């Protein structure tokens, strides 16, 4: 990889080149302008590239070489569950019978797809301990919002219109409060206690007759299991609220504790995280929502049902919240998740969680003497270190993250959760070997040493990437969001 600018596709374009061949038109040619009203035929062509097929492949191959994925190297990005993406998933999702079917075909001609969706729902119902699952939401945040809209409809159906507040812990993912706002709620923050868990006293203080729901990630974003979950459920249910489970961290508790058994009324899952979506450079994801019986009437329409041996979409749902997305969700991602679950089976999913948690605890113990560990107890699938000690020496967590790039690693999630100073959130996942974990720990320990002995090398990192640190202030102050011909 060299450090020259990689030309934009628009910069290698040359008039007269093509990257496609359409079949010859086999119907009589017509003067299209005569078929359109005056002024509707485009007079200025869209400036798209003019390049050959090889140009395109070289361009995107060069771009891919400037990108780090799980297949490139270790990617311990906390809260994102960057596990291996099985290749069989990709093959199955591309079967013509899954990839090339239309959502509005006659149901008799897509029974195979509907059977897969139904069986995936059944598997997710068992995994979450819920009573019903919808596959309609497109991603985690979309699932959060869907579930909150159902909670809102539930309260409204009970004439309970004063429930305008959603409680979220201070350690929550940013999507939680954002989803609450988009669903028309006001967000109330509940504090964490000195152990990194929800402060029960504070929860009792903020919960009340105006509480619509509590949104909770368990284990939380510190990777700690909320041990008082049953008391929390009692507090929230006691004031008439609903308990919402953010499934971003489900990889930590599969076969160990189900949201449905912990007192949660609804849950969203991130199929692109726990169930190997893949992540796609930022999506597409899939965010199914599971609910307990009393929320079933409010599920998005249509609901997939099985009658005798036939699958059908039920649109007759008088209390439904409506439709959150055209069609039936991100089917292609759901096919991949289903393939993964069927590849693992019950014993496999149990091992997934056990090894994910073992890996995280092993790393935490290897690193604890070199960094501050704000919450010293067994973690679940991830843990959060603090760079406080290094900051006193003039090196920030951001610098250490950039230095990790020189070792070929994607850094952990940094500066999150917000309640840890200079935080580094590390999630190894179960698909990484001990050798990989050791090599990463060695690198981080070496960086901690560099901070003491040679801080400049960390402060000025990265040194080996195709580009150095970028001027983000300039990007925001003088936004250039598209290419324009000079």
């Amino acid at each position: 990889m060299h450090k020259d600018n990689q030309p934009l596709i628009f910069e290698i374009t040359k008039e007269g080149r093509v990257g496609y061949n359409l079949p010859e038109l086999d119907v009589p040619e017509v003067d299209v302008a005569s078929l359109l009203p005056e002024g509707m035929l485009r007079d200025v062509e869209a400036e798209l590239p003019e390049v050959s097929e090889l140009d395109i492949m070289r361009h995107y191959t060069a771009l891919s070489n400037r990108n780090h994925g799980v297949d490139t190297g270790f990617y311990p990005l906390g809260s994102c569950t960057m596990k291996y993406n099985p290749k069989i998933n990709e093959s199955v999702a591309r079967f013509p019978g899954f990839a090339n079917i239309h959502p509005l075909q006659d149901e008799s001609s897509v029974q195979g797809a509907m059977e897969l969706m139904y069986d995936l729902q059944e598997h997710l119902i068992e995994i979450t301990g819920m009573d019903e699952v919808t596959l309609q939401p497109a991603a985690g945040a979309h699932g959060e919002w869907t579930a909150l809209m159902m909670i809102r409809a539930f309260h409204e159906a009970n004439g309970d219109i004063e429930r305008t507040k959603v409680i979220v812990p201070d350690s929550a993912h940013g999507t939680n409060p954002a989803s609450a706002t988009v669903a028309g709620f006001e967000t109330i923050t509940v504090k964490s206690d000195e152990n990194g868990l929800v402060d029960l006293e504070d929860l009792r203080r903020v919960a009340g007759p105006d509480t619509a729901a509590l949104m909770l990630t368990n284990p939380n974003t510190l990777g700690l299991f909320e041990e008082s979950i049953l008391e929390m459920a009692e507090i929230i249910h006691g004031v008439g609220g609903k308990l919402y489970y953010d499934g971003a961290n489900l990889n930590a508790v599969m076969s160990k504790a189900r949201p449905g058994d912990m007192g949660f009324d609804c849950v969203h899952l991130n199929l692109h995280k726990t169930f190997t979506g893949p992540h796609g450079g930022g999506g597409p994801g899939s965010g199914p929502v599971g609910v307990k019986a009393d929320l079933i009437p409010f599920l998005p329409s249509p609901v997939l049902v099985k009658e005798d041996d036939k699958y059908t979409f039920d649109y007759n749902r008088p209390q439904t919240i409506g439709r959150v997305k055209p069609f039936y969700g991100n089917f292609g991602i759901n096919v991949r998740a289903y393939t993964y679950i069927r590849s693992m089976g019950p014993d496999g999913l149990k091992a997934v969680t056990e090894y994910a948690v073992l890996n995280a605890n092993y790393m935490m113990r290897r690193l604890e003497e070199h960094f501050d560990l704000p919450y010293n107890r067994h973690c679940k699938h991830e843990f959060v270190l603090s760079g406080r000690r290094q900051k006193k020496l003039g090196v920030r967590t951001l610098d250490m993250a950039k230095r990790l790039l020189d070792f070929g690693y994607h850094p952990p999630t940094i500066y999150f959760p917000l309640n840890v100073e200079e935080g580094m959130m590390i999630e190894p996942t179960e698909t990484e070997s001990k050798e990989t974990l050791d090599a990463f720990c060695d690198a981080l320990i070496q960086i901690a040493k560099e901070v003491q002995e040679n801080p400049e090398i960390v402060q000025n990192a990265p040194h080996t990437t195709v580009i150095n640190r970028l001027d983000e202030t300039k990007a925001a102050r003088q936004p250039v969001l598209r290419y324009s011909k000079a």
Partner: protein
Amino acid sequence: MKHRYLPMTEQDQKEMLDVIGISSIDELFADIPEKVRFKGEYNIKAAKAESALLKELANLADKNADSKKYASFLGAGVYDHFKPIIVDHVISRSEFYTAYTPYQPEISQGELQAIFEFQTMICELTGMDIANSSMYDGGTALAEAGNLAAGHTRRKKLVVSEAVHPEYIDVVKMYAKGQNVQVVTVPTKDGVTDLAKLEQLVDEETAAVLVQYPNFFGQIEDLTKVEQLTHAQKALFVVSANPLALGALTPPGKFGADITVGDAQPFGIAEAFGGPHCGFFAVSSKLMRKVPGRLVGETTDEDGRRGFVLTLQAREQHIRRDKATSNICSNQALNALAASVAMTALGKKGVKEIAIQNITKTHYAKQAFEKAGFEVPFQGAHFNEIVVKVNGSVADANKALLEKGIIGGFDLGRVNSDLKNHVLIAVTEQRTKEEIDALVQEMGALYA
């Protein structure tokens, strides 16, 4: 447990437990209260080995009628278009598909640059100033446009044409409900938005007018008029456009659209039973800081080299939390990449050629239906869809057509009681003259 995705050996496990200072993995779960602890294993299907699972799922896929084997005339928002073979080769590069959101720009320049190029291509096609890095799909993109307009204008009413895709309207209503915004629909006349009714409904309370281009019935709306009526009341003009049609049609930006959204599925993205597809979201510059989702911007590193970063993040949920302009986090990055490859392959000449082919073939089909005695009720200009009136059940005919290797059009009676026995037929460049002739002939026989 030995599994090809799980590298843990017994030896590893022992060494790791020693370092942690415990004797069994169970101890790591001791903090889960006994009362909620799940015992045993899930009651789900047993694991299947790769070859057996491939076979089972291939059989399941074969139960479906796919557009590789069947000639599909079904559109209504999802289309069977030419997909350059290189699209799958590019998006199968695992440096792209096994990465996540490019939070670390130094090792994500590939993804960031690809998205920057995507943003540029969407701007070019739509004639807008700024495009984001993608939304879930066209329906949620339109719904977010409605919410943006309500927030921007501080008005609480959206006026939506009934010639917008009915499922999109449903989603607009859902999102609006969350924000306590009212949605009013405008009836159609002759298959296009009734402009007289629109004029009555747009007032100083209106945040935005939302139309589709070409509309749900394949007809081309008079955007000049809609723009005038909308901006006369200082509402935002929102257009949901088929980006492939914009290869031949005057772009919404030229008609003064404030927001243009749509779905890039026609560019290289599989139908996939309705998702994942790829929403796009483009605005005029004055709305730059209100755009939902991720934006990639150009900048330089300390040596002056050009590079790309996620930018204007103060709009977004991970910074703004409950004050964010939207809750979107994961988007459709890989499909935006697929669309970019398809738009690149087609290029400047190809998008025009393919769009013209769609109009031409649809025109041919329209004439063939009329010659065969069918009524085509909406006679305005069309893109690649027409409505055909029939004298019997569309659902029954579609079942019969399947027997002949044809996936028939969309039964409009499913969504509009006035259009019982009307079928929406899509004719893309993929359909041959032979297939079109066969459809007309078979339908002629079925409805004789």
